């Protein structure tokens, strides 16, 4: 039995928003693969929760009229990976979330829960950062649109007010069109493990495939929150597609990161991973885009 003080069960998003307004301290329970475990361990025992897992209006993926990809927050990792829109336009995200935990966790875990948790190791986070995701956050006062780049305030802290719920994640057409990407997760086991380091890169090349038009790179566990490496992006902008590109990205990426030593890895090892994963993910992204080294 889970030690909840109260469990609220809204039947609609409107009801959920009312409950969140009335009980601002109650936790939003999506798939529960973090909250239920922390409740079992005692860390969150005695909390009140608002279970939104049953709200199908917050589930699914669609392509909006202007080509924006809209992912509703309760979409599970496995449904994201299998989704035809994601496979066609944003395969990097589908591949990234296919590396979360194991099959059962990918069936229950939701992308909204993954990013609202605010942890730096979230497998969806670096790819969503690297694709400039835009969040739709709703309360009884209305809808607030927030770039995902501004969402993480610190470890486990995100810019969600006590009366708000994340209701949508959008990737604009200009962001994903003609891009090719790669997410690399470095972990100690190939399943059921949390990333020691994660790196997501995507590139758009010129028509002749010889110049980088735009490169974006983001990391998980390279800082207290998932982060973009803007120095590396700037340095790679308009760079020639050649062997120097990987070094340009890797050597500049380390300027933007701030990894720590934990039981999983030392700061020094993480810095080595940052440069090596940056190289590998850049090479792979450029090759997928048709570039030749």
């Amino acid at each position, binding site marked *: 039995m889970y030690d909840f003080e109260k469990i609220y069960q809204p039947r609609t998003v409107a009801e959920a928003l009312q409950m969140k307004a009335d009980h601002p301290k109650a936790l939003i329970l999506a798939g529960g693969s973090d909250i239920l475990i922390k409740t079992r361990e005692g860390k969150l025992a005695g909390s009140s929760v608002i*279970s939104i897992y049953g709200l199908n209006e917050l589930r699914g993926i669609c392509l909006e009229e202007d080509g924006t990809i809209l992912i509703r927050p309760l979409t599970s990792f496995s449904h994201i990976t299998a989704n035809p829109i994601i496979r066609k336009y944003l395969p990097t995200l589908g591949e990234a979330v296919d590396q979360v935990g*194991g*099959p059962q966790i990918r069936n*229950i875990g939701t992308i909204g829960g993954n990013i609202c948790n605010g942890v730096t190791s979230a497998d969806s986070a670096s790819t969503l950062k690297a694709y400039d995701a835009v969040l739709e956050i709703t309360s009884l006062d209305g809808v607030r649109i927030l770039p995902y780049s501004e969402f993480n305030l610190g470890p486990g802290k995100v810019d969600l007010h006590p009366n708000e719920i994340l209701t949508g994640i959008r990737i604009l057409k200009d962001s994903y069109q003609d891009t090719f990407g790669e997410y690399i997760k470095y972990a100690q086991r190939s399943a059921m493990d949390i990333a020691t380091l994660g790196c997501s890169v995507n590139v758009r090349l010129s028509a002749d495939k010889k110049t980088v038009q735009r490169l974006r790179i983001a990391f998980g566990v390279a800082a207290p929150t998932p982060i973009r490496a803007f120095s590396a992006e700037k340095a790679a902008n308009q760079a020639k597609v050649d062997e120097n590109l990987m070094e340009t990205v890797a050597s500049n990426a380390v300027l933007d990161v701030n990894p720590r030593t934990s039981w999983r890895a030392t700061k020094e090892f993480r810095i080595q991973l940052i440069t090596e994963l940056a190289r590998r993910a850049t090479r792979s992204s450029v090759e997928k885009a048709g570039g030749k080294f």
Partner: protein
Amino acid sequence: MDKQKITFTLNHVRREEYIDPRASLSEVLRDQMELTSVKHGCNVGECGACTVLVDGEPFNSCIYLAIWVDGKDVLTLEGLTDIDGKISDIQQAFIDEGAVQCGFCTPGFIMSSLPIIESEKTFSREEIRKQISGNFCRCTGYETIVNAIEKTAKARKSGK
């Protein structure tokens, strides 16, 4: 907390149950409905011994609230035997291949293997391993488990 009525399909039979809204699905299935194939293992979604299918997908029932199955279709290992109590091909394959030692993890592995053996796609051994990577076995070393799943998948595809 007051009990709450849920209506769901359990092993092909429509059921109405009164449950505590704080209960996990594993607690309702094992303790209340006495389906003892559902094991209380780690209780935190790591070992897979409590795996059941909900609407055809494997879930760790220990970190799944029982209230969430309202209106859904739940399948446990007990639902694999036919009306005469005869076990299914995948269960027999686990026995034949020596994929069962202490047996604690076996129901969870079999439930995780169902999407593989019921798929039209042919899974490589590597893909089978990935599909069962949320289940832990401390006895067999996994090889015999992969053998049992591979054998059943092949047999079903060839219509045997």
